[in-house]
């Protein structure tokens, strides 16, 4: 899947889960900058990503996600395989 | 049993458990208001109250007891 498509779909997930149509995904976007990104919405977001992209994340992989770029990279890598 | 009677019988129990002969119990009185009302003396209190009224509090009764008013209501419901 093209990286731009991944980013597009991810942006839609973020806007939906974090309830904010104005969210713009930057590579360096982190949880601390998004108002409704709390422990519950984080779980919902991960769940949606796994569903939309048909992937499953390992705990170690989740633990390395510090910003949106890491997440897009990980999705890209998993969707290829 | 009348609320007044319950309060009259509870007062000496509270005074004994918390070692305070001047303690006055009100509906809103809770652990936050009494210096030595901690989880340990709370268990003692429950036991003494059960003995005084010949009742047994169920676990769900205890969970609902936030203050003396709640306790009085629950005791009342057992008669």
């Amino acid at each position: 899947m093209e990286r731009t498509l991944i980013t597009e779909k991810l942006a839609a997930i973020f806007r939906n889960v974090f309830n904010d149509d104005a969210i713009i995904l930057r590579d360096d976007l982190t949880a601390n900058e998004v108002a409704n990104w709390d422990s519950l919405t984080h779980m919902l977001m991960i769940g949606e990503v796994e569903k939309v992209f048909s992937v499953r994340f390992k705990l170690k992989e989740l633990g390395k996600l510090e910003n949106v770029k890491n997440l897009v990279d990980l999705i890209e890598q998993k969707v290829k395989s | 049993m009348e609320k007044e009677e319950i309060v009259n019988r509870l007062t000496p129990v509270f005074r004994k458990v918390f070692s305070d002969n001047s303690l006055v119990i009100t509906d809103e009185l809770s652990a936050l208001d009494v210096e030595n009302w901690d989880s340990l003396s709370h268990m003692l209190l429950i036991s003494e109250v059960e003995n005084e009224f010949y009742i047994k509090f169920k676990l769900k009764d205890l969970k609902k007891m936030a203050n003396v008013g709640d306790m009085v209501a629950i005791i009342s419901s057992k008669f």
Partner: protein
Amino acid sequence: MSEYLIRKAIVNDIPFLADVVIASEKGMSDRLSFATLFNKTEAEVKDLIMLMLEEETEGCELSLSSFIITEFEGRPISGSGAWIEGLNGALPSKILKSNLISYTFGEKSVRYLRTKAHIVQDVLIEREPMTLQLEYFHILNEHLGKGLDADLMHRIEENARAQYPGLGKVQCQIFKNSVFSIKILLRHGFRIAKSYKSADEEIFDYLPYNEKLVMEKEFKN
């Protein structure tokens, strides 16, 4: 010489720690959020908590390394969990905890959570980075009233300062109806800093109470 031994928790303590987490989470109620928000039984939750602790993630409430145990006659009789938020570049604990739960509880549970999340969001509180977060503090009934809470609090702060000498603050999030724990914290120099109340009455079905306090203690360095 005290008959109590305070030490770091190890893998063998995990079943006891799971009981500590469950007792602490229920507080003064019988509501276990891990069960109510994810549609699990308490027995299932205990197994899942043990699995999460076994992952030995660092830096959140479900980290084995966050816990200290008190031993009496060779058996654990208290468990306390505390960590420094964001220490050494760690991810926010809310993310670490959520990763653990997502991964361990499974997608069916997360789908269930989706329908309930809105009820409890008012009492989800951010944790201040580089502060000590005190989350679990449970002493078995038979060992209350022995002054153990003071020793534990002291040890927790000592351990934290060893990890981060510049430590300026301890925070504790606690439901307002946990009166005995609140009293213990007040006695140890904590003050009520903020309060968060839920507008949704339904919250009583899922969490111990509808209002959560942030209690804080500051250190002068």
